[in-house]
C-alpha cells in the first residue's frame, strides 16, 4: 500500500464524484422533493451516454449530442410518469419497467450503424472528437480538466434548479411532494407535477451520463447499473454531513454534489485498502441500507422522550 498511488487516484475520484453529483441532484428531485423512489435512472444513466456517443460518432457537435441526451432522459422520465399516473402502476414498479425497457433500447442505440443492429458498448476517443472532458486531463491544471468542467456544470445546474424551484411551478412541485391532499385542495394538478418531476430528474441524470461517457471515453449498456444506489448514497451522505449546516435550497443541492464526491473518495480509499472492485456494489448497497435505516433506528431506539412518555402512560 503506497500512499502515492492513493493520492494519484484522488483527482479522478473527484471528477467522477462531480459527474455523479449531477446524477445525484436528479435523484434528489424525485427522492427528496417529490418523495418518490424512481428506479428508471438505472436505465437513463446509460441512455444519456449512449445517445451522446452515437450522436458524436455520427458527426454531431458535443453540444447537440448533450442536448439530445438530455431530451432522451426527459422522454424516459415521461414514460415512467405515464406508467405511474395514467396507468396507476406504483412508482417503484413503473421505474423498474422503464429501466428494463431501456436496456433493450440502449443496446439498439449503441448498435446504430452496426451490422448486428445492437451493441453493448461504444468507444469515443478524445483524440478524434472534441469532448468536453476526459480522464486524460484529470491531473492537468487547465480549463479542460474534468474537475473544472464538472464544477461549472454542477454550479450551473444548481443555479437553474434554485431558480426553478422558486417559481410558481417549482413551488407547486415542492408542495406536491410535501402534501398531495393540500396540493389538490389548492388547485395543483399533482399527477402532472409528478410526471414533470420525473422528466426533469431523468433529464439531469441523462446529462450526467453523457458527461460520464465522455470522461471515461466510452458508453456501456451496463454503466447505469446500481446508479440509483449511488445517487441515494450521495443524497444521504450529503444530508448526514451537511444537513445541519446547509439549510438553504442551493446549499442542499451542493451538499448532494459533495456527497457524491465523498462517496467516490471513500470508494477510492477502500479500493486502495485492497478491496476487490467487483465487491463495490455490495459495499454500496450495505452502506446505503445502513444510512436509510438510521432515521428509523433513531426514532425507534434512541428517542428517550417517547419511551418516557410511554412509561408515564
Amino acid at each position: 500500500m503506497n500512499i502515492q498511488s492513493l493520492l494519484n487516484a484522488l483527482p479522478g475520484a473527484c471528477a467522477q464524484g462531480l459527474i455523479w453529483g449531477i446524477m445525484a441532484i436528479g435523484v434528489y428531485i424525485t427522492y427528496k422533493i417529490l418523495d418518490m423512489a424512481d428506479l428508471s435512472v438505472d436505465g437513463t444513466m446509460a441512455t444519456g451516454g449512449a445517445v451522446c456517443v452515437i450522436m458524436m460518432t455520427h458527426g454531431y457537435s458535443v453540444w447537440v449530442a448533450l442536448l439530445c441526451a438530455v431530451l432522451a432522459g426527459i422522454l424516459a422520465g415521461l414514460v415512467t410518469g405515464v406508467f405511474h399516473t395514467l396507468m396507476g402502476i406504483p412508482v417503484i414498479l413503473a421505474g423498474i419497467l422503464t429501466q428494463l425497457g431501456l436496456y433493450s433500447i440502449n443496446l439498439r442505440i449503441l448498435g446504430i450503424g452496426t451490422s448486428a443492429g445492437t451493441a453493448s458498448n461504444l468507444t469515443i476517443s478524445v483524440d478524434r472528437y472534441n469532448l468536453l472532458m476526459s480522464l486524460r486531463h484529470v491531473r492537468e491544471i487547465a480549463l479542460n480538466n474534468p474537475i473544472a468542467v464538472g464544477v461549472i456544470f454542477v454550479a450551473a445546474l444548481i443555479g437553474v434548479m434554485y431558480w426553478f424551484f422558486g417559481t410558481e411551478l417549482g413551488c407547486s412541485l415542492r408542495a406536491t411532494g410535501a402534501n398531495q391532499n393540500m396540493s389538490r385542495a389548492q388547485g395543483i394538478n399533482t399527477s402532472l407535477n409528478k410526471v414533470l418531476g420525473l422528466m426533469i430528474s431523468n433529464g439531469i441524470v441523462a446529462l450526467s451520463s453523457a458527461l460520464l461517457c465522455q470522461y471515461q471515453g466510452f458508453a456501456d449498456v451496463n454503466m447505469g447499473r446500481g446508479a440509483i444506489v449511488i445517487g441515494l448514497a450521495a443524497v444521504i451522505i450529503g444530508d448526514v454531513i451537511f444537513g445541519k449546516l446547509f439549510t438553504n435550497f442551493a446549499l442542499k443541492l451542493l451538499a448532494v454534489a459533495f456527497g457524491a464526491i465523498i462517496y467516490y473518495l471513500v470508494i477510492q480509499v477502500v479500493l486502495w485498502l485492497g478491496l476487490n472492485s467487483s465487491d463495490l456494489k455490495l459495499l454500496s448497497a450495505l452502506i446505503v441500507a445502513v444510512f436509510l435505516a438510521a432515521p428509523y433506528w433513531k426514532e425507534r431506539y434512541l428517542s428517550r422522550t417517547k419511551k418516557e412518555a410511554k412509561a408515564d402512560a
Partner: protein
Amino acid sequence: MLELNNIYKTFNPGTVNEKRALNGISLKLNEGDFVTVIGSNGAGKSTVLNAIAGVWPVDSGSIIIDGQDVTGLPEYKRAKFLGRVFQDPMTGTAATMEIQENLALAKRRGARRTLRVGITKKEQEEYREQLRTLDLGLEDRMTAKVGLLSGGQRQALTLLMATLQKPKLLLLDEHTAALDPKTAEKVLKTTDAIIRENHLTAFMVTHNMKDAIAHGNRLIMMNEGKIIFDVAGEEKKKLTMKDLLDKFAELSGSSIQSDKALLA
C-alpha cells in the same frame, strides 16, 4: 351558490364492505348561507363534503357550484371554487414548506402556475398583514416551516389559506375536532370572523351539537346518507340541544343518547 341534485355514492360496491354512503342527497345553498351539518358517525356528513370537493366521483346525481356543473371535474380543478379546511391539522398545509410559501401556494389557487417567481416581496407584506389578524404571532415567523406550528396554529393558517382567494364555498370538515377545547373555540371564533368579513358561503361539518347551534344561519341533520332535518333562519336561532335530540329520535327512529359522539 351550491346545488346538489340526487347524489348517490356507494363505497366498495359488490363486496362484503359495501356501504351506501350517500342515499339521494339534494341540497341547495344560497349565497351567504353558513350551514352547519350534524349527524352520527357514518351518517355521511364528511362524505357529502368530499363529494362536493371531488375527492372521488359520485355514482349519480349532479353538483353545481355557482351555476357551473362540476360533477365531472377532478378535485384539483374544482379547487378554484372551494376553500377547504380538514379535520387533521396535518392535511391542510405543507409541513416542510414555509408559512409564507404555503400562503403563496393558496394565493394562486385556480390560477396557472407559471415560471414567475413563487412569492413576491409585495405579497409578503400582504401576508404579514393578514397573519396579524389571526393574532397568533405568525406574522413574525413567516419563514418558519409550518411543521413547527401547533395544531391550532395550523388550522388557523389553513383557514386563512382557504380564504386568501375568496372561494365560492368554504368547506370545513370537523376542523376543530382534533384540537383541545380552548384552541377549538379560538379557531371557531376566527372561522366566524372570516366568514362574516368576507361574506362567504360555508358548509361546516361538526360533531359538536352546541357548535352547530351557535354558528351559522342554517342547520342540517343527516342520517344514513340522507338529510333528515333542515332548518334555517329564526327557527334555527331558537333551536336548543333538547329540540335537536328529540328531533333526531323522532326522525331516525333511534335514540341519540346511544350515540356519544353526537353529544361531544
